[in-house]
């Protein structure tokens, strides 16, 4: 078995483990039978240490690549290692889109369920698992086909559980009918955070998709200035020319790690200024391709290398509407600490689902990309944890690389429900990860 070095998308906390590449559910079961501690890994887009296991076995799901036929109701069964990109190449030409997509197509279906990913339509459609009809989960005590009605405990316990119940091997999901490959996008610029949040709270329900990009470097009258883009799928009657074109490969790439410190408070400030000024003040119903609207960063391969060798962390949290002032307080604290934070992403969340570890709670979510290196950053993020805890919010495990274990239980009050399920399907705690150890979910 080969040994390999693993780290998350943020390029921090590398660790070495054995790597297995099973190409069938049976091969996954054989790996589980070895009783070696293990964790499944997809395309490695979790930012922190969720899909690695120092000294253990990392089980790649990329060999599980079966793409079933899409039936006339848009239901399809996919191997867990099929990426969103693989799926869209097949489904868009047939007029089907994925019901929930994260900001990149480079995630696997197994990873999307394990992290219960969300998109720009959570306020309307919930997270990814809400559209999963059934899935196969290979656990240390057996392989189960589960759905929200058949063993809901294991189904929802696996959703958002970062791989700690077992290995997802395949899933059946409901796709979304589309008539064209365009989104009609409304873009608005706001000079202050309060304005953009008011606009989102008032009118997001009129749009299928909504996201705001917030500048976290400005203070005072322009604190949290933002660009809000919202859109709906274009119907065939909206466009002169109707296409259903599959996404293209990235045309640009970052061939090596940029020097650490390339993204510093000054360069980020300059970038944010240019970006803000280049956005239209108010533009309606501009047609944009699906890739340009949903996956702009997929146009540049390995963009995470721009953060240099030391890498970066993403801090994503959510809070309920009642605590919406936390968003402003966090941005104020960041800008006054002079920590460089690239464009932050602000979204509305609708109701969460039945999973005990799923991230979304109804209200707001803010995601911040922060380069590692500033000596004050660890302390600033600990401060943000306190603010999020006081607001009864939580941070997203798929992004986390630094939370203190004592905060996990407060942020995820249903942790014990999850642990009870885990002891049912994995009594020996065979499924574990560097994240599970760091947050003391699994002990050793």
């Amino acid at each position, binding site marked *: 078995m080969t*040994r390999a*070095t693993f780290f998350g998308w*943020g390029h*921090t*906390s*590398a*660790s*070495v*483990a054995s790597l297995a590449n099973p190409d069938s559910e049976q091969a996954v079961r054989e790996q589980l039978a070895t009783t070696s501690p293990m964790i499944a890994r997809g395309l490695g887009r979790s930012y*922190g*240490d969720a899909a690695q*296991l*120092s*000294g*253990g076995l990392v089980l790649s799901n990329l060999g599980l690549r079966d793409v079933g036929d899409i039936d006339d109701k848009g239901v399809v069964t996919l191997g867990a290692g099929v990426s969103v990109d693989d799926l869209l190449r097949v489904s868009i030409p047939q007029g089907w889109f994925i019901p929930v997509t994260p900001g990149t197509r480079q995630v696997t279906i197994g990873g999307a369920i394990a992290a219960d990913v969300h998109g720009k339509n959570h306020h309307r459609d919930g997270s990814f698992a809400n559209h999963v009809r059934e899935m196969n989960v290979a656990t240390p005590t057996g392989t189960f086909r589960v759905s929200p009605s058949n063993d809901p405990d294991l189904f929802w316990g696996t959703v958002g559980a970062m791989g700690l119940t077992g290995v997802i091997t395949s899933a059946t999901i409901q796709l979304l009918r589309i008539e064209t490959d365009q989104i009609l996008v409304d873009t608005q610029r706001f000079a202050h955070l309060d304005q953009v949040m008011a606009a989102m709270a008032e009118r997001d329900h009129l749009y299928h998709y909504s996201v705001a990009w917030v500048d976290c470097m400005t203070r005072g009258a322009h604190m949290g200035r933002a660009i809000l883009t919202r859109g709906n799928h274009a119907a065939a009657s909206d466009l002169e020319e109707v296409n259903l074109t599959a996404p293209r490969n990235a045309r640009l790439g970052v061939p090596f790690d940029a020097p650490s410190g390339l993204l510093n408070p000054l360069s980020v400030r300059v970038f944010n200024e240019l970006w803000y000024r280049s956005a239209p003040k108010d533009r309606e119903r501009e047609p944009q391709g699906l890739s340009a609207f949903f996956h702009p960063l997929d146009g540049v391969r390995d963009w995470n290398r721009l953060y240099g060798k*030391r*890498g970066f*962390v993403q801090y994503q949290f959510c809070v309920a509407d009642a605590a919406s002032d936390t968003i402003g307080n966090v941005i104020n604290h960041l800008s006054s600490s002079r920590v460089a934070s690239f464009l932050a992403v602000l979204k509305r969340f609708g109701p969460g689902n039945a999973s005990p570890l799923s991230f979304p709670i109804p209200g707001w979510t803010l995601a911040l990309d922060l380069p*590692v*290196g500033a*000596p004050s*950053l*660890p302390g600033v993020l600990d401060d943000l944890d306190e603010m999020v805890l006081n607001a009864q919010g939580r941070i997203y495990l798929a992004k986390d*690389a*630094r939370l*203190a274990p004592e905060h996990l239980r407060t942020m995820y009050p249903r942790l014990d429900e999850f642990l009870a399920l885990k002891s049912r399907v994995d009594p020996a705690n065979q499924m574990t990860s*560097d*994240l599970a*150890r*760091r947050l003391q979910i699994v*002990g*050793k």
Partner: protein
Amino acid sequence: MENAFGQPQNVVVLGGSSDIARAITKKLCAQRTHTVVLAGRNQELLDVAAAEAQEYGATKTDTVLFDATDVTNAARTVSDAFDKVGEHVDLVVVAVGLLSDQRAIENDATAVQESMNVNFTWPVVALAEIRRRLVAQGSGRILVISSVASVRVRRTMYLYAGAKAGLDRLCQGIADSLEGTGVRLQLLRPGVVRSRMTEGQSPVPFTTGVNEVAENVMRGLASGERVIWSPPLLRCVFAVLRHLPAPVWRKVTADR
């Protein structure tokens, strides 16, 4: 596990009752460290250091007693310490060393051997065991306390500085050998530090307190640099000093 900022949770400190080690342990515990196993030669001092670690946030502490003049116990001391942590060890600090009055020992073969055991041989044997265990773990860090004195050995402390020089160079080789294993070794090269070890020495420039050293260690762990200098300016000072012509070097270091 260590987090994205190089902050460890489970730590072993060899030479855990030394002043520098205690300052480092305190700062680690104020961050994310919750388990600390301290190894040293004096139980009383170890207990004080362990209590201090708890005061700063550690939830589990333990101690291991050893005598660094006897190199045969090095591997066993390391395995005892790892066993007492009982889970993944994120950071091992090697802070074993003793600065003796050179004039008192340089003509005594037994004393010279002891000095070399404490400052070189014991740490090297321990490092072999640490290296083996961390590589099997697939991740972890080693911080070895060297000294700026190792950069250029001076006549008044050639035994101590020479042993540190050997340790320092050997560790650079270990660091290279660890490439691709998930394990990293970093060297700390402090200048003169006000501590029990240096009591009574004549004052020299760039002397710092132990807290400043510990602060530089925290930054070095976060950045991952191979050699942590404390204070950082000494990197530049020694870039010059190491190339001084020998007669000038002898003159500069005649009485210190």
